């Protein structure tokens, strides 16, 4: 058995085997995360609103999300009559590209990383901008006014919030002197960067709530005014792909925040993976908490907040950091 495995590894090469194993791991994390988070979101929402949440299927309702996903898988895939077919079909698939690419560079532990690329953070930032593109073509291709409004809003919002997101990560890159995520984590051996850069952390977190389209910045899908925004016309498994991508994006922004500001996989006693997931899910919980605490902002408030407050403050932060580092 061992010999056969070794033979296979020798034939196709170590790098390929590593990549395949890494991608399988990524799929497991993506699916497990989504299944767990749907349950958590409903439980947290329930308790915040003094309800109990799901409790019928399995102990504490733990199997609820499995039941839901089986239901979604079994549903008929409806295609509305007037949709722009290629765009309509492409959107749910395209939204998964950035999700998978981003996972490749996140260091879950000192050794647990699919590939350490020396421009790691640029890979994440570059590919996460694809999300807005798929929202755009999904909303446009649906031939529905609500979808189109959702898509337009999402574009305006993403343009506005990508700038502070980038600018809040730059001081960290200054301090770590590297684009590689592992170097950034290693640079936080002593003190976490959140201690040096509290403003950058706040800006990053606010901007990432907007980038993942979560309440209070969920204008692209605002249920109470736009039905479901850009994915109004999607049903069954296509809808659940959007859903899966949203939950995975929540995990990714939290993981990036942990990597850049909260010391990544570093922590005493427990192994690194445990620390990484604990910190990440703490931030994910904060995102859920936001959703059930803050009301949705108005669109002009949303844009003004980014252009008039977040961007100037993050520029100032960048300037001060650069100045201090050069002294």
């Amino acid at each position, binding site marked *: 058995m061992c010999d056969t495995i070794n033979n296979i590894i020798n034939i196709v090469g170590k790098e390929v085997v590593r990549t395949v194993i890494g991608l399988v791991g990524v799929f497991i994390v993506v699916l497990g995360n989504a299944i767990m988070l749907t349950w958590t979101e409903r439980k947290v929402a329930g308790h915040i609103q003094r309800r109990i949440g799901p409790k019928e299927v399995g102990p504490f309702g733990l199997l609820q999300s499995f039941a839901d996903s089986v239901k979604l898988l079994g549903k008929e895939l409806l295609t509305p009559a007037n949709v*722009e077919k290629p*765009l309509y079909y492409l959107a749910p698939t395209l939204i998964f590209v950035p999700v998978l690419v981003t996972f490749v560079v996140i260091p879950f532990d000192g050794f647990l990383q699919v590939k350490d*690329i*020396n*421009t790691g953070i*640029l*890979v994440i*930032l*570059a*590919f996460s*901008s*694809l999300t*807005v*593109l798929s929202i*755009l*073509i999904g909303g*446009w291709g649906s031939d529905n006014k609500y979808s*189109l409004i959702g*898509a*337009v809003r999402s*574009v*305006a919002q*993403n*343009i506005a919030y*990508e700038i502070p997101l980038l600018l809040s990560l730059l001081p960290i890159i200054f301090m770590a002197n590297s*684009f590689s995520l592992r170097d950034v984590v290693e640079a936080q051996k002593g003190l976490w960067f959140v201690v040096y850069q509290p403003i950058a952390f706040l800006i990053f977190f606010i901007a990432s709530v907007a980038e993942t389209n979560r309440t209070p910045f969920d204008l692209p899908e605002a249920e109470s005014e736009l039905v479901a925004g850009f994915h109004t016309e999607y049903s069954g498994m296509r809808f659940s792909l959007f859903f899966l991508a949203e939950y995975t994006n929540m995990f990714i922004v939290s993981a990036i925040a942990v990597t850049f500001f909260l010391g990544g996989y570093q922590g005493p006693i427990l192994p690194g993976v445990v620390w990484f997931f604990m910190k990440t899910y703490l931030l994910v919980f904060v995102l859920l908490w936001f959703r059930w605490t803050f009301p949705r902002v108005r669109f002009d408030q949303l844009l003004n907040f980014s252009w008039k407050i977040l961007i100037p403050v993050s520029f100032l932060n960048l300037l001060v950091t650069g100045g201090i580092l050069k002294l």
Partner: protein
Amino acid sequence: MIFADIIFVIIILITLGGALMTVLSGSIIYALMGLVTTMFGVAGLYIYLNAPFLAMMQILIYVGAITVLIAFAIMLIGPLYKKPKEWSYPLKFILAAVVALFSFFVFAKVILKTQWIVLSTPFAISTKDIGRLLFDRLTFPFELISLLIVVAIIGAVMLSLYSRGEK
């Protein structure tokens, strides 16, 4: 070496296919998707040339910012996606072809005339080198570009101010 050549051909096909889609598709949103494909192809070329930083910047700026801005502009000017093809008149098509061929020959001439220096060993340019170049040897052109952008911004602001009436 064969493997590298195959990859190169695939990248070139993606780039050219996207470009053709941009020019020939009737619907403006498909043209945009073609543009995105071309940008990805160009980023692939940068990776092929061992410049990952440039490739990532290509995706970040051209796919993430510029095409998204173009998309935003398309959505502001209204539902053009049901409009017929713009170059349906033969005269327009011929004029466009003349301009395209002319610029193609100019570029081809320039490329063929340049004496390219072929390096014997592959080299990698780091982010640090790019920063050094921009802020040291190439500061003057860099600043000139920023001046150009400032002029463009002022022009855009002026245009938007005057189009809102109350001259």
